[in-house]
């Protein structure tokens, strides 16, 4: 390597490194703060000072004890909602995406345009009428109310359509010759070869569900029914003195995802980027 090349390598790594450090900074500071009384952060903000002798695990104890373990209830709610949402979302969006990709029928292009339309309209515009609708179904404060308006995720349909388009049609033909019905072909022959797509979509949908805030905040009214993001947000009230749980709770809500991410970085990145399978 020439001197110039070494210099450029140091410079390049340094530039990227600075951005990487900034990207990780919030985790570092919240993690450090989670060992100190929450009121300190609320009053003084996050500071660049480390008084390790005052650190304790008190905040982490609150995860089990605060209001009879309300935090663990939020955790369970988040997991249940995520599992239902991902399972149903995968099932329906793969069904539709496959149908759009592998059959030629009247209305196919129209349906695809409608999928694109749903993808392009921010759901935030619809929160009010959706709320009224879910209310009229008597589904306020239920898991069903959270999941139902997103039961056929358009991004998923789009993704599965793209993926299925690239699969060989001969498999379907040979399935038909073997006497398989159209649904048998889908469930027995196509689903297994679509596994990579299911993997990527699982991550995208699961992350969306785990972190979603606005819609669950509207539907889930009582504290016992809430998910992690809204539960934690509710600790920030000016009247509350639950700031200690806020910090340990935030750390614990993101820790499992970090671990899973670090173990499967490639799959994760591919999954999160799956929304962009364009062109």
């Amino acid at each position, binding site marked *: 390597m020439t001197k110039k090349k070494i210099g450029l390598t140091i410079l390049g790594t340094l530039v990227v490194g600075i951005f990487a450090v900034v990207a990780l900074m919030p985790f570092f500071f919240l993690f450090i703060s989670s060992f100190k009384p929450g009121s300190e952060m609320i009053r003084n903000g996050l500071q660049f000072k480390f008084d390790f002798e005052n650190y304790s695990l008190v905040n982490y104890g609150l995860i089990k004890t605060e209001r009879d373990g309300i935090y663990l209830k939020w955790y369970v709610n988040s997991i249940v909602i995520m599992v239902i949402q991902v399972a149903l979302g995968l099932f329906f969006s793969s069904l539709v995406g496959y149908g759009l990709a592998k059959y030629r029928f009247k209305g196919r292009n129209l349906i695809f345009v409608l999928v694109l339309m749903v993808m392009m309209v921010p759901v935030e515009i*619809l929160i009010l009428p959706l709320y009224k609708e879910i209310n009229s179904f008597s589904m306020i404060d239920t898991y069903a109310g959270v999941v139902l308006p997103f039961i056929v995720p358009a991004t998923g349909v789009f993704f599965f359509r793209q993926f299925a388009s690239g699969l060989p049609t001969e498999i379907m033909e040979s399935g038909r010759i073997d006497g398989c019905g159209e649904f048998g072909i889908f469930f027995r022959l196509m689903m297994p070869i679509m596994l990579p797509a299911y993997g990527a979509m699982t991550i995208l949908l699961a992350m969306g569900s785990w972190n979603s805030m606005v819609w669950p905040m509207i539907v889930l009214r009582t504290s016992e029914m809430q998910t992690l993001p809204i539960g934690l947000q509710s600790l920030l009230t000016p009247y509350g003195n639950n700031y200690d749980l806020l910090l340990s709770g935030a750390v614990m809500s993101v820790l499992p995802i970090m671990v899973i991410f670090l173990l499967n970085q490639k799959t994760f990145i591919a999954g999160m980027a799956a929304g962009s399978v364009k062109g």
Partner: protein
Amino acid sequence: MPKHDNNISRTSKIRMLKVAPYIFTAPFVIYFLVFFIYPITSTFWTSLCQQVGFAPPKYAGLANYKLLMDDYFKMAVQNSTLYTFFTCLILIPLPLFLAVLLDSKFVVRAEIFKSALFIPALTSVVMAGLFFKYAFSSNPAALMNSFIGLFHIAPQGWLEKRTTTWIVLVLFCVWKWLGVNIVYYLSALQTVPKELYEAATIDGANAWNRFRHITVPGVKPTIIYVLTISIYGGFSMFAEAFTLFNSARTPGDIGATIVSYIYAQGFNRNNFGIASAAGITLLAGVMIINIIQLKITDPVGKRND
């Protein structure tokens, strides 16, 4: 399904072949009608009505749209537009630059940096909001104030003034999405033929010219895609502002966005009519942008096969 029913009925099978696609796609069609068309129609109708809470609506023509012309809504539209503009201004070129850098031989251990930059995308807005709220605390000893203190800038009450509030929100957005956009660009960069660079180098093109005439045209579809999602995300931003202020309303409406306006009018004040009029206005804006975008990229035509 039995294996030897070939001769049972050919016709029923052919019929099934015709019906199957409609059954496969039916969930979406039903979903579309119930959770898309119905809510939009109902919003449109409500926007033309005087309605408070769940009381029966009364037709009121364009009254709600006229009421929209207040300072609060103007502030919200202005904020959302400026936010979208500045996030696009940063989140389109910066990740491209970093992606090119990560893809070059001038970064050692690029994989580690890629993962580190991606991690913010995994967090909830609530958790990230905690950091931004308290790192940008008005306390002179807080992170950001002590950082700008290094450059002899006086401590700021970041979330008390409009300009600084939006600096925080733009930084929040850049922090969260930088890594994702880098990943988009990195995968696009793999599709640009390496021979083009070699040929250009032989012809004496310098790094900037290679970037401008080979890289940028090569990743153009991704640039358009990133632009689209940035516009989408920009105009629908709400959760970030909500977590910073812990409310849809902010003192002096400095943190108002179009969606927080809809939320506050609808859920805090029960002005469903005005909230719906704001929703329809936003929808119209989004639709116009999308139609322009569809005209340029033509996804249906190209992806038909």
